[in-house]
Structure formats: C-alpha cells, structure tokens
C-alpha cells in the first residue's frame, strides 16, 4: 500500500544532491522549534547539534529521531565536512561570532533574531555575508506570516491611505524567567536565563520588539531616523539586569512613528500591532489580522439646510471621542498562501539555498531590525533622543 517501499534509515526519496544537511548551534527552545520546522521540508536533515548544556543533546536527538552527531564547541561542528548550512539559535551576544564563523566556513546561515547585540556587530555580519558570497536569512518568522504579508500588501496598495503610526505592544504577565534545575548554580542560571542578563541579551526590545520593529521598517520603507526610549526593572527585582518594562518611540524619515511597549505585569492586550492610516487601520495579532475602515465623518446636505431655518441649539459639549467599536473586516489569506509563519520562514531559507537566490528576510532586513533594536536599547539606557545618522552608516 505504501507509495515507495523502503525501510527506515534507507536513502530518502530526495536525490542526494538535493539533500540539505543542517548543523544547529544552540539547541534551546528556539533552536528546537526551528529544527522541527526544518524537518518538515523534504530532503532536510539535521546532521550536527552543538550546545554547551549537556541535556540539550538528548532533547535535540529526540526531535531528529536519530543519533545526530553532537559537538560541544561550535568550531568542531564547523569542521564537520557534510554540513551545507548552519542554524544559529544561541544567546544574542554570541550571534556575531557564530554567524561570521559559519559564513567563513563556507556555509549558508539561518540566524535567529535579533541580528546581533551591537551596531558594529550587525555591520560585521553584513560584510561577512558579502565576503563569503553565501546566503544569510534572519529568523524573523512574522516577516513570513501570511496574514502579515497580506496586510502589508494592502498597506502598500494604499488601502489605509497614508500610514502615520504603528502602535504596537507585547504585553505579558510573567517573570520571563525559565526554571533552573539548581537555583543555587549561578552559572547555570545565567546560561538558562541569558535573556535576563545584559552581557548576553538585548532584553524585551530585542526578544519581542524586534518582530514589530521589522514590520514598522517594512511599512515605512527603511530604518528610523531617531528613537527615544525608557524602561526599568520595576517589578521583577530578582537579580535580573534587563528592564521588565520597556517603551521606545521610533520616528521615520518623512514623518511617521512606531511606538512599542513591552510589559511583564499585564497580559490584557497581548501582542498586537496596530497600523493607523488616514483612511483605514489594520490590527495584527499572532494568528490573524483585521482591517478597519476609518469611521466616516458625517456630511449631510439636509443638515446644512436646516441650520439656516432653525439655527442650532447651544448647550454643554457632550460628544465623547470614543474608540471605534464596530466590526472590522478579517484579513483573508488567499487559498494556497495560508500556513505557519515559522514553517514559511524556514522553507524560504531552504529554497534560497537550493535555488541560490536571496531570501526575503536577508541580511539587509536583518541589519535594519538589528540596528534599530541596538539603538533603541541605547536610548533606553542613556535616556533622551538618539539620532540614527550619528550611530549608523546609512545604507546606500
């Protein structure tokens, strides 16, 4: 009954030349999710796992369902001969070293977001991609979310009029802390909860805001010109070093702002991107999108007539500026374009490797997101307004 009769472990249906062997550096929660997605693509095999935390090897092999070779040092993984591309899902501060070394070893790279911790590191990755002549894709999965793509198409077609603001928040109500098997082991604590420590992490702006920043960059067609930021460790005073309450406001050339907020003490609003245009708005969530027409302004010829005859009545002002509470139009994803953002993101990378073409979320997209996050964090740290032109070499 089987379509092609073969035993497990035998050569796969995909010709060897089409098989893509991946090495994975960083087998934490994100690395594992990327692996699951990659393994849904025909002819993709994970042929190397690298981590510094021993339990990750067994976890990773459970996902690959085979005795995948393991490495405790990423340089050893890069020395392996049979790898075509490298997935990097390590703490943010390590991205630059891992990405550049992988590119220099002659491999294509799928690098998790954010691109890198600092502007200089982002620049170095862009140069390394150019030097190596290999493909680089950033793991910004929402860049590939079908309902995001559809919304963006409408925005670019002018369906919202002129977009003046992206108002976004990612609000949670939890400590953002992962359980550590031995709480007294401080080394392990920093390894597992690296997101909470400045040496490795860009905090909430990097881990959550990056997705929204990437979208705002697409809406406004480039990187911001300035940012102001604020934040603090206001509630979770548990030894962490990154703010648990963050806001940043980016301004784009030609007018237009992106306001981003992340809190860890309320999940009323969840994660939402609200795009306000002069004739319509779009609200995007992690699973769908809704389009709203701008509520109509009343215009009535009859009303204009009666004012001359009857005059108007004076009294106390009563009209409140209430939010629009009507229904919107769900953004329908066309048939054949529906699907999972993470899967689409991984499939795009594999396709770009196989066909030797630029992925949609390439190093330029990554750089624009990376420097905006880095400078946003700088603004949060030092306060005040920060001009991009003074800190980044604007792309040609």
């Amino acid at each position: 009954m089987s379509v092609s009769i073969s035993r497990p472990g035998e050569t796969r249906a995909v010709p060897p030349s089409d098989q893509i062997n991946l090495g994975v550096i960083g087998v934490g929660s994100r690395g594992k999710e990327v692996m699951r997605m990659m393994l849904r693509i025909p002819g993709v095999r994970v042929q190397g796992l690298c981590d510094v935390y021993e339990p990750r090897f067994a976890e990773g092999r459970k996902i690959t369902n085979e005795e995948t070779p393991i490495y405790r040092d990423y340089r050893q993984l890069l020395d392996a001969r049979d790898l075509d591309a490298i997935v990097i899902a390590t703490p943010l501060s390590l991205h630059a070293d891992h990405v550049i070394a992988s590119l220099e070893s002659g491999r294509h790279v799928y690098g998790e977001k954010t691109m890198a911790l600092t502007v200089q590191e982002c620049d170095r990755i862009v140069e390394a991609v150019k030097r190596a002549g290999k493909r680089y894709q950033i793991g910004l999965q929402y860049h590939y979310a079908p309902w995001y793509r559809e919304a963006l198409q409408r925005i670019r077609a002018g369906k919202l009029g002129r977009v003046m603001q992206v108002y976004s928040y990612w609000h949670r109500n939890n400590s953002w802390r992962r359980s550590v098997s031995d709480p007294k082991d401080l080394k392990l604590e920093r390894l597992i909860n690296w997101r909470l420590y400045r040496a490795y992490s860009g905090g909430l702006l990097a881990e959550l805001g990056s997705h929204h920043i990437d979208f705002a960059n697409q809406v406004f067609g480039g990187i911001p010109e300035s940012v102001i930021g604020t934040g603090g460790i206001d509630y979770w005073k548990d030894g962490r070093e990154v703010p648990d309450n963050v806001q940043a406001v980016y301004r784009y050339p030609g007018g237009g702002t992106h306001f981003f907020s992340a809190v860890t003490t309320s999940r009323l609003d969840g994660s939402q991107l609200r795009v306000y245009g002069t004739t319509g708005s779009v609200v995007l969530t992690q699973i769908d999108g809704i389009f709203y027409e701008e509520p109509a302004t009343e215009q009535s010829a009859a009303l204009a007539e009666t004012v001359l005859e009857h005059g108007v009545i004076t009294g106390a002002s009563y009209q409140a500026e209430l939010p629009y509470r009507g229904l919107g139009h769900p953004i329908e994803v066309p048939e054949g374009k529906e699907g999972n953002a993470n899967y689409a993101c991984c499939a795009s990378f594999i396709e770009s490797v196989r066909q030797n073409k630029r992925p949609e979320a390439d190093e330029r997209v990554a750089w624009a997101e990376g420097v905006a996050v880095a400078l946003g964090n700088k603004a949060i740290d030092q306060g005040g307004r920060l001009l991009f032109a003074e800190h980044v070499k604007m792309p040609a």
Partner: protein
Amino acid sequence: MSWARPGIAILPSPDASAFRRFAWCAALVLAALAGLTALCKAGSEQLFAQSRQAMGTTFTIYLYAANEEQASEYFEAAFEEIERLDEALSNYRTSSELSRINRLAANEAVTTDPEVFELLQRSLDYSRRSGGAFDITVGPLMRAWGFFRGKGRYPAAQELAKARVSVGWQRVVLDPATRTVHFLVPGLELDLGGIGKGYAVDRVVVLLREMGVKSALIDAGSSTIYAIGAPPGKPGWNVRVPQPGNRLQAISTVLLRDASLSTSGNYEKYFRLDGRIYCHIMNPQTGEPVQGMLQTTVITPGATDSDALSTAVFVMGPLAGKRLLQSIAGASAFWVLGNPEARRTVAWRWPDRDRRTSRASRAMNSSVAQRNAGP
C-alpha cells in the same frame, strides 16, 4: 519562617502572679507551636492551580511547588508546550502542521517532522488494533453530521454517502523512509481530536517531571487526566467518574497515581431525533454515531493511550473492547451502556476506590490505579 509574637503575655492582668505565670507558659507553648507549624510549612510544598484554553477546551494543571514563583515557572513551561502542540496538531487553525498536511496530502506525499509523523503512526496503529473503531479520518463524517463547530444534525443520504467515500484510515499512507503522509483519496482529512489532548498531557508530564515536579494533576478538559505522584500524605489523586449527563453525581471514584484516565461520553455534543440520541462519536464502520453507549472510562499508564482507547472502546463496546485492552499493559475500563433511563455498567479490572476500601482498609494502597491495573 516567622515566630508568632507571644501577644497574650503582655495583656494587663488584674493581679495574680499565678495568672501571669500561666500566661507566660501559655505564650511559650503557643510560640513553640507556631514555630513548629512554620517550620513544617517551610519544608513542605503548597498546591497551586492554573487553567488556560487550548485545543478547543480548558486545560487545568494542579501542582505542588515550593512557592508561587516556582509554580509560575512550571505553569509557563507546561502551557507553552501545550500551545506548541496545539499549533502543530489543531485542525481548526489553518497555520497548524495538521492543516498543512490536510491541504496537500491528497496531491503529494507531504514530509513532516518526526514528532507529528510518530503520532500519526501511533494513531493508525490504534486503528489497526481496534479494527477501525478508532479512526483519525472521521472528519468528513463529523462534518456531515454537523459536529464540526456545531451541535449536530441528521445528514442527507447523499451528503453521508459522499462523506463516507473520504473516510478510512487505510487510505492514509505513511512512509517512514521519507517521513511522508499521502492520502489515497481526495477529501480525506486527519482529525487528532481523539488522541492529541492525550499526547499533549503526556508531553507535559515528561516536562514537569524533568523540572522536578513530584505531585501534579494534569486535566485536559476533564476528558483526559494524568496524575503525577500523589498529594502529600495521600495515596493518590481522587478522580470521580460522573454519572453520564450529571457531573455532580459520581458513579465511581478512583485513586489515580502515575497513571492516566480518559473518559468519552455521548453527552458532550449530541442531538435527539425520534427518541434516539445521536452523539459526536462516530462508528467509522457504519458512518453513524455510536448507539447504546453512554460513557467509557479507561485507565492506562500513558495519556496518549487512554485518550485513544476511551474512544476506541466506546465504539467497540465491552466485549470487543476487553480483547483490545488485554493487549495493553496496565489497562482497565469502565463502561456505562444503555440509555439514560436504563443504564448498566461493566467494569473490567476497575480499581474503584470505595468498593475496595469498604472491603478492607488495607487494600487502600492496592486500589491505586497504577498498581492495581494489569494482570
């Protein structure tokens, strides 16, 4: 740890050094007692509970943890895993891996990841072993009978005939060498509603155990319940099996420990027509809702198994059901048959708590589901 203040000692007393002495003694005893209680509390764990919506139902997790922060870390990790699996296995979300397979597999062999592939293999294995009573391809039948996002209705003959053509686990081809799924007929679709919640519970159990949880109850919409260990000082977690259609009336109570219990009932989604009840559990062979079965409850060591088997033996009934369960180590089952007016029950290796405890209190431990079950 905090010591209770001996407040009573400083109460002004009218006279009497004797009273004062008594007061001091009382205060000291009280303080010592308070200290002891505080010590015990510091050494022991507290019970926490959290519920969230997932997989079209409410998941509730009860667990013992040292403090709220620790409990919160356990809950976050557990619910994150459930959400991950919902995103992979849901047939309601267009973004799920299952939906992707359903969209493409009639036209091509679709590669999927080892986890999803293995769950599909297990599902088809249950179909094989249950003679088709358990079948993840009944989706078109569910639609025809109006149970997909609806409360049910009697289908037109033509509609039913059309649905039946697109049903049948033998029409799903899994190729382990390429890890691909292929449908032999168009219109076929996979629905993991009878096994996915159990699988999610099993995954959460592994995760919580790895994180060091010693005592917890994971409840997937009350249809699948897994007990990790037991509450402190207790032999197991109490699980009440309700009278069909009356959640408040228990017809059996079991003590669950390191085992899973699943229940399928005809009362969750159903409609009545000409005096008959049409429930949402399909008999894949007849293409119609199962008749004459009110409820089945199955206990097995794992939740994926109990979830799938409670549906399988609901369709199969006690006679064939027992034959299937005999091949599964540690399984036991409880059927409620007939109709709401005339019920009868069939228990097989069933560890009812009360029945045993009434015989002899020393049997208490052996009534714990996990130890009692199995030959």
